[in-house]
């Protein structure tokens, strides 16, 4: 079948409600990841996609769980979420002290994935997230700006594990995205596969054989301490885990790309 025909049909299939959130277009590009998980200085090709301008908020997540009771606190399968799931909320359908415009946190990877699927979207890959987070207000890649790097690191070190504040308090970056680097940490769809040999379930002599492509942790760009802390924190989580500062945003593929 032709991709163009398929793309047209796909557009027709998306309901108007699915476009309610603000997604911004991210152009294609190539960049060198700060991680050397695919070999030293590999140039990563990013296909164009669209991304939520801001992280998913408590208010948005409340709408989701109101519609899908199987994702409510107290009802969700223990396979998908732990006892701290949505812990900041007063009740399964009551935010209480949690602000509507705070990013939703204490959500598992499963829950984030289900939320995005519900709006015909998915979680970004690590490379997609890293690609857009490299920008500052005016440059696509500001990673060599030492003052910027220090600011991001200070923000992470100052966060101390408390819940993030409300979204949209910082300037949008080059792409029109907000709150990528300072407010919270975000799930990526492939986070668990960045270092799959770290999985205890493939420990022992079988570990090498269990991998078609092995990878070892190595940071190519030693200036990216803040990014390093994010990777370390994310890869320590299991997909049903959650944390007070880990939220998410969704992305969409562009039809036919």
């Amino acid at each position, binding site marked *: 079948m032709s991709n163009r025909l398929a793309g047209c049909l796909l557009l027709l299939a998306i309901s108007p409600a699915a476009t309610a959130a603000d997604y911004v277009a991210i152009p294609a590009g190539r960049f060198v990841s700060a991680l050397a998980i695919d070999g030293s200085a*590999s140039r990563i090709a990013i296909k164009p996609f669209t991304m939520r301008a801001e992280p998913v908020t408590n208010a948005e997540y409340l709408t989701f769980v109101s519609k899908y009771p199987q994702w409510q606190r107290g009802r969700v399968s223990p396979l998908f979420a732990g006892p701290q799931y949505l812990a900041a909320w007063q009740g399964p359908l009551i935010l209480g002290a949690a602000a509507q415009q705070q990013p939703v946190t204490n959500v598992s990877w499963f829950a984030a994935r289900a939320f995005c699927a519900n709006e015909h979207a998915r979680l970004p890959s690590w490379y997609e997230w890293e690609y857009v987070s490299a920008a500052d207000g005016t440059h696509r890649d500001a990673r060599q700006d030492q003052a910027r790097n220090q600011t991001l690191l200070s923000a992470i070190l100052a966060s101390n594990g408390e819940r993030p504040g409300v979204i949209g308090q910082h300037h949008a970056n080059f792409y029109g995205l907000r709150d990528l680097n300072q407010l919270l940490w975000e799930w990526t769809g492939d986070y668990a596969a960045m270092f799959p040999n770290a999985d205890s379930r*493939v420990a022992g002599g079988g570990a090498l054989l269990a991998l078609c*492509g092995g990878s070892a942790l190595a940071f190519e760009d030693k200036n990216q301490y803040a990014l390093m802390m994010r990777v370390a924190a994310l890869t320590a989580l299991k997909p049903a885990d959650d944390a007070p500062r880990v939220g998410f945003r969704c992305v969409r593929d562009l039809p036919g790309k």
Partner: protein
Amino acid sequence: MRFPLHVLLLMGLVLAPPLAFASPPAATPLPKDSIYGIPTLILRDQQNDVFSFASLRGEPRLVGMFYGSCKMACPLEIETLKRIEHAIAQKRPIPVLLVTFDPTVDDVAMLRQVADEHHVQTPQFRLARPEEGDEGMLAGVLGIAYRPLLSGGFSHNVVVALLDAEGRVIATTDASGAPDPAFVRAIVDLEAKR
């Protein structure tokens, strides 16, 4: 590229009506820790049969993931599962389902080719591709992670889970050669309880 089921239906690519996927009414609700509780996942096997993952509830089963062009870990996974079947040969064979995480490449022809290469047949040994739904959810509950590599192929781990009839994970193995005795024993014990 993947399409929602209704798009495939529009295009006339799916012959079976959606109602065919509905599971028969269950006598008891699904246990909360059953992996059949993942969001609806529609699969197509090497014989072109379309079925929902949740419809497999009812008997113990081995479930894992793979991809067809995998040169090392996945062929080893399939051969290890055959050896596990051999190790429990005095009992009835336990059905196997392996779902590809590379559906853009692994069409039915590819599934059939892999099945032929390893001399495995339905209904006992099913290789399947996701048609609709999120196979990433299945990977998550099985503890499987994968990521495409720049050079082609995937970085991934191997986990095969023994599910009881209700879809609870009883034991897992990395299926990397010699059958894990504890895993074989778990299968035999589960059969003995039925």
